[in-house]
């Protein structure tokens, strides 16, 4: 922004003129505004361990601790820090603070522990593949060694 007051941008009267890069700046803002909704709508792929059956309608309940079993299998939800904002927005319909508060209340009343957190898609896929009952989410189409529940 200091470009606007550089000597090269000063007019004959010595007053600052409209920044030469203003059109570029406006374009950038416009582009950002156009891109932002696209970024907010990033895909989220919910995946499970191959031996775990869960429906898309149950995913929110699983991540809020209200559904703990799929048949006899104990479900093990795992958060993916890299995709969590999109997942919370699109699937859980909570923001991060409300999600954390909900789990604090759940833990305090019902003695449940919140999901463990992995840092990336690769870590999440590896955990889900290795852990019976695991359910997680990633940002790209998952490999074949985990089960895709639904793309949100």
């Amino acid at each position: 922004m200091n470009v606007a007051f550089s000597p090269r941008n000063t007019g004959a009267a010595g007053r600052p003129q409209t920044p030469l890069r203003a059109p570029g700046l406006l374009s950038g803002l416009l582009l950002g505004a156009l891109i932002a909704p696209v970024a907010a709508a990033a895909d989220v792929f919910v995946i499970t361990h191959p031996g775990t059956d869960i429906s898309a309608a149950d995913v929110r309940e699983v991540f809020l601790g209200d559904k703990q079993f799929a048949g006899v299998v104990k479900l093990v939800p795992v958060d993916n820090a890299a995709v969590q904002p999109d997942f919370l927005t699109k699937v859980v319909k909570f923001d991060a603070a409300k999600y954390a508060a909900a789990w604090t209340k759940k833990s305090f009343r019902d003695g449940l522990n919140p999901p463990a957190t992995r840092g990336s898609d690769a870590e999440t896929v590896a955990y889900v593949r290795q852990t019976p009952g695991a359910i997680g989410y990633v940002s790209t189409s998952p490999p074949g060694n985990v089960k895709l529940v639904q793309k949100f």
Partner: protein
Amino acid sequence: MFSVKSSNGSLIRASLIGLAALIGAGPAMAQSDSARIRDLERRLEQSIKLIEDLSTKVKRLEAGTAPAAASAPASAAGSTAAAPAASAAPAASAAQIASQQARIDSLELSVSQLGATAASNTVLGIPLHGFADVGGGVAKGIGGAAGKGFSVGSMSLYLTPQFSSRVKGLAELVFEIGRDGALATDLERLQLGYTFNDNATLWMGRVHTPYGYWNTAFHHGQQIATSLRRPQFIDFEDKGGILPAHMVGPWLTGSVPSQSGKWRYDLFAGNSPRIDLDANQTPGSGTLNQNNAGSTNHYLMQGFNTSYQWRNGLRLGLHGLRANVRDNSLAPSTAGLRMLGGYAVYDADDWEVIAEYYGFRNTNLISTTGAPLGTFSSSAGFVQAGKNFGLWTPYVRAERTVLNQNDLYFAQQASGRSYGRGAIGLRYDLDPKAAVKFELSSTRQSVAGTPNSTDLRLQYSIRF
């Protein structure tokens, strides 16, 4: 060919029966996780070995290379018991094998999960959670409980160990400074649970008595409660509450989902509380004691709580509680506590509204204080509403009790007098785990000669 089929079918049938017996035997609940893991692993290995042997034999039979040892008895079986047995029992179908395989897969998953749980607890330890709060305030009137100046609130530490996929625990220790300045330590909760499925968990131990909404939702968790203080009449037993906020006994809890929301329920039973009078056994000086060490009066407290929670954030519930409560005087009185009430909670769209009502029809069963025998009606309730504006949440609350002083249950408690209180407050979230609250409240006592009070309080609370 017949002899081959007979042999094959008998083997498969015998093997599957054995396999089913191995798998079907349910794990003993009393076994420890490690014992269960070892037992399950042993049985899994036996099952896999059995299947492998069976597969090998089937392949050999299909290839026509059945060993003489196997064919000889089968050939002879035409005139013995083997033939009718084989003809009576159909050969195991692929569906049966698939079914058994599915059960083995399920067993394998259970073994893996038990192992994973044990490994997780060993490697990572058990997470420790907690709440803490400090504060201060000024009070006008003797009824101002906090007095003036700064104070330490309480620190609550709780653990939520998962011993296996279905067995869990919750232990909570609370440290707080009493009105006399002494440090008090309470084993606030110690409960062990077994989760049958998504609809039912059975707890046993010392728990927060599940009446209304507030008592189990917030309790010592000041940081997750919007307001600075609990409504007085549902405060802790030694802080002015008139109901047993804790109990020792079993508690069945769960929920059943439906299309528009879910039904929640709680069924509980425990030791009936008693009323401990002061050292001089002054009538009306008592506080509730939950009988943690065992029932001294041999009365059972029972209760229920059921509610429906809609997906839009509204929850409506009914709750009830009954107990016979005796005081600890040399000539004790006994009162029958009978509470029935309802509550409503709305928690959505940045609004939090909580209303609870408690109706009492208590009976004086034995009176040694001169109070008349009979049944008396009383009531208590509060309404609180708050709206979130980003980091700020202003709130307002009104609470009121009308407690019949002929009722021994209330008359023998020091806090069993009618009162009314109005409060306004403001909460500011420093971050998602820390909040500062201010509350101004005015309390009017119903007993003549008891001064009213006005309090202005500050609280800084965290969770971790």
